[in-house]
Every structure is written in structure tokens, then in C-alpha cells.
């Protein structure tokens, strides 16, 4: 790993992420043969990210904005280490807490209590850590008497609440949030926001994807505007939105 300047937590250097669409399209020998004879197999390249370079410092909160399919989520996945970039380098300094789709690590057959331990382990927490924070998680999620019920009986709001309280229990260096803050009822959303603010106040770096401009403005002080996999603008959040709205009109 490269040695970074101390306060830079994420550094993307010329990152390009290619997907081969042809691989997705064939669904058997017949298609493979047809595409092979047409010479289509190798050339159907799709770049979800093109030469993206970005430096993010400790304690900053960045919003990622842009149209659907512009590469926001791909960028988050590259930073989280889920995708390996086709070229370029990604250096991350610190632990990442992913808040991508709450409850992805749940097993519906298990009870809430069992799922807290399972999901905690998915996020890389130790058993001891979860035990110490168990009550805090349960209290925040407001599960009450349902703790020992299989979560297949839960409402989606309850599952999301549980997911949120597990994921935010840890003091990670970097928090990655992809469109998930529309969780639960108004009262719970308020609670989520409060917790997010607490986390940010403690010096955690935040990456935030949302189509809700008000929310992004409320949470972030900087923004990246992506279009077609390329960074159009990075820096001041108002400037980014101005360009974004302009870009929408030109189209």
C-alpha cells in the first residue's frame, strides 16, 4: 500500500472500471456461438468509470451526484473494495463501514438476536464488540418484544431499522451510504439523521449518494458530479448542483 499524506483517507488515481457487456448477454452455447461468429464477443466494452481521480481527506463529507447510471454506485463499490478497477489505483486508509442496502446480510429464518451477531460478523465486528453494544443496537432499532422472533415476520421498516442500527454502531473511519436514509417513519428518520450527525462530528469521513438534493446539502460540504462515468466537477457543493442542473437542461 502506498504511503499517503496523513490526512488523505481515500485516493483514487486514474481509475477506470470496464464491464464486458458481451459476457452478460450470452446465455448458453448457442448465443456464444452466434456472438463468436459475429465477432462481437470481445468488443462490447462498457466503461462505468473513466479516469476518475479523487482525493478525500479525513473528516470531509462528500456527496456523489449525477443521473441514474452515471457511475455513482460503481465508484462506491470500487472504494469499498468490492470491484477491482480495470486500471488505475485505489488507496484507502482506514476502515470502511458500508451502509449499502440495509440488511443485506440478514438471514430471514434467524431471529433478530441471531441476525445481530451474523450481520455484525459480516461487517467485521468481533463477538465481544457486538455483545458490548448489543443493548444499544436493540434500543436504537426499537425492536422491543420482537427480539427472539425470526425476522421473516418483520415489516421491511423494522428490518431496515435493525440494519441501520447495526451498521452505525461502529466508529469506522469511512462511512459509505448509498440511498438508504429513507428508512422507517418520520420519527425514526429524525433519529437516523441525528446519529449520522454524531458520526460525522466524531471525525468520520462520509461518502453519500442520494437523489435528494436537500438531504445531500444537509449532510455534505463537498460534492462530486459524475456524468457518463467521468467526473465533471468536484469541489463546492453549490457549484456542483449548479452544473448538474445545467447539464440536465442541455440534455
Amino acid at each position, binding site marked *: 500500500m502506498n504511503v499517503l499524506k496523513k490526512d488523505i483517507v481515500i485516493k483514487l488515481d486514474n481509475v477506470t472500471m470496464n464491464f464486458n457487456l458481451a459476457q452478460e448477454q450470452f446465455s448458453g452455447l448457442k448465443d456464444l456461438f452466434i456472438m463468436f461468429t459475429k465477432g462481437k464477443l470481445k468488443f462490447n466494452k462498457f466503461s462505468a468509470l473513466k479516469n476518475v481521480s479523487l482525493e478525500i481527506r479525513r473528516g470531509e463529507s462528500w456527496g456523489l451526484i449525477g443521473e441514474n447510471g452515471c457511475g455513482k454506485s460503481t465508484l462506491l463499490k470500487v472504494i469499498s473494495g468490492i470491484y477491482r478497477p480495470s486500471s488505475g489505483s485505489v488507496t484507502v486508509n482506514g476502515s470502511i463501514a458500508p451502509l449499502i442496502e440495509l440488511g443485506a*446480510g440478514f438471514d430471514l429464518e434467524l431471529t433478530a438476536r441471531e441476525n445481530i451477531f451474523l450481520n455484525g460478523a459480516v461487517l467485521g465486528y468481533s463477538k465481544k464488540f457486538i455483545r458490548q453494544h448489543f443493548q444499544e443496537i436493540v434500543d436504537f432499532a426499537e425492536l422491543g418484544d420482537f427480539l427472539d422472533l425470526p425476522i421473516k415476520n418483520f415489516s421491511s421498516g423494522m428490518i431496515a431499522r435493525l440494519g441501520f442500527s447495526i451498521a452505525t454502531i461502529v466508529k469506522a473511519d469511512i462511512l459509505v451510504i448509498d440511498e438508504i436514509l429513507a428508512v422507517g417513519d418520520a420519527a425514526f428518520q429524525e433519529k437516523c439523521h441525528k446519529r449520522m450527525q454524531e458520526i460525522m462530528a466524531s471525525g468520520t469521513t462520509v461518502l453519500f449518494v442520494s437523489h435528494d438534493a436537500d438531504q445531500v446539502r444537509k449532510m455534505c460540504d463537498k460534492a462530486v458530479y459524475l456524468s457518463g462515468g467521468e467526473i465533471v466537477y468536484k469541489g463546492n457543493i453549490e457549484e456542483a448542483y449548479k452544473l448538474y442542473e445545467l447539464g440536465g437542461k442541455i440534455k
Partner: protein
Amino acid sequence: MNVDWKIIRKYIPLLQQLVLRDLKIKYRRSFLGYLWSLMNPLLMMWILTMIFSYVFRFDIPNYPLYLITGQIVFGFFSESTTVAMSAVLSNAGLLKKVYLPKFVFPLASVISSFVNMLFSLVAIFIVMVATDVSLQPTLLFLPLGLVILFVFSLGIGLALSSLSVYFRDMFHLYGVLTTAWSFATPIFYPVNIIPEDLRYILYYNPLYYILDFFRKIILYDTVPDGSDIMLCIAISCISLVVGISIFRKLQNKFVMYI
């Protein structure tokens, strides 16, 4: 190979939780629960013993014990590898959203099957007691046999779990393959019914040697030769090394295909 032990250590709790989940869910809501791990092999043995003692006659001393040993050893192998095969794909949703070391999933499947088999071993002891076989000190070799079997199955399981991401046909093929494999392993028949000129099939079958190891210590009260033990260890190590290499080579592009 450079292995990142820090990452492995970090995800040991995940491994524990996954195994625990498998074990909890397997028998949840069934009345007899874990007893099934014990009763299943016994019931199967009972049925097969009826068939092969009265319908087709094999001349094997203590046929029930011969049979149940074969069943449990092969049963573990085929169950663990089959479950491991789909381990990566069935956790696709998770792997696409959170960074996790991918080997955790097939490893957890093989460990869960292994724990299950440990329950089934009680069935072997029950049959030993029921058929008046005394517990011999050769049984001290049982843990070694179990490790060999585990490592062998883990290697195959890792290879299958990564190959199946790219070739979904594996799921359809492997069922046929394990059936063929089960007939090529002397589970319910004695080796001597195989014609001499076809026996080479057995000799190319790694499970034949591993099963033989188990039968020697459980059924025949003999300690396997040093060369037999070395062969079994070599077989399982080769399986693991090959499995790990295939998995490591293929795992980087998993997310693109799942």
C-alpha cells in the same frame, strides 16, 4: 502464496456465525432436530442392509458396519462439496454489497457439513456396539482420517464453488458425477465383485483409499500402513492446494458474474 492473515483473523467470527447459522437452520422446526443426523444414516443402513442381505447377497462380515462407514464417509464428501458448490453464488447479494473474503462461504459450508457428520459418527458407534465389535485402540487414528477427509472435501469444494460461478452447468453435471462416483467407490459392495480388469477404476479413485483408511481402523482393527497413510495425506493435500489455486485465480472476477 502471500496470505493476509490479518484479514483471515478478522473474519473468523463471520465463519463461526455462518456455520452456526447453517446448523441452526438445518433442523429448525423439526421435532427430532439433531437426532436426524444420527437417525438418517441408521435408517438408510437398515434399508440397504435388508436389500443387500436378502435380495442381492454380498459376502461381507458385519455388513451393517461396512455399509454405514461407507455411507457416512461418502455422504459427507458429496454433501459438503455439493453445498460448497453453491456457496459463492447463494451469497451473491452479500458479496456485491460488502467487501468480504470470498473463501469464507465455501469453507463455512464444508465445516457445517463436517459438524453434521460428527453427529452421524455416533451412528457408527451404535452399530459397533450393536454388532458386538469391541472398541479397539486403532480408533485413535479416527481423528487423522477425519482431517484427511475434511481437507480433501474442502479442496474439491473450493474448486467447485469458484468454477460454478462461471459455468452454471456444474450444478446439473455434478449430481450425475457424484452418482457415478458413488458407484465407483465400494460403499455397499465388496471390492472383490469388481472384475480384475476393471479394478483400475477404484485405484484411480481417491475416495477409495480414504474410505479404506476408515474401514481399516473401524472394521478391521488394523492400523493402516505408513505408505497408505502418506498416500491419503498426499491426496488430501493435493486436493486442497489445487482447490485453493483455482479459487484464488478465479475469485477476483466473481462480482462481475454473480
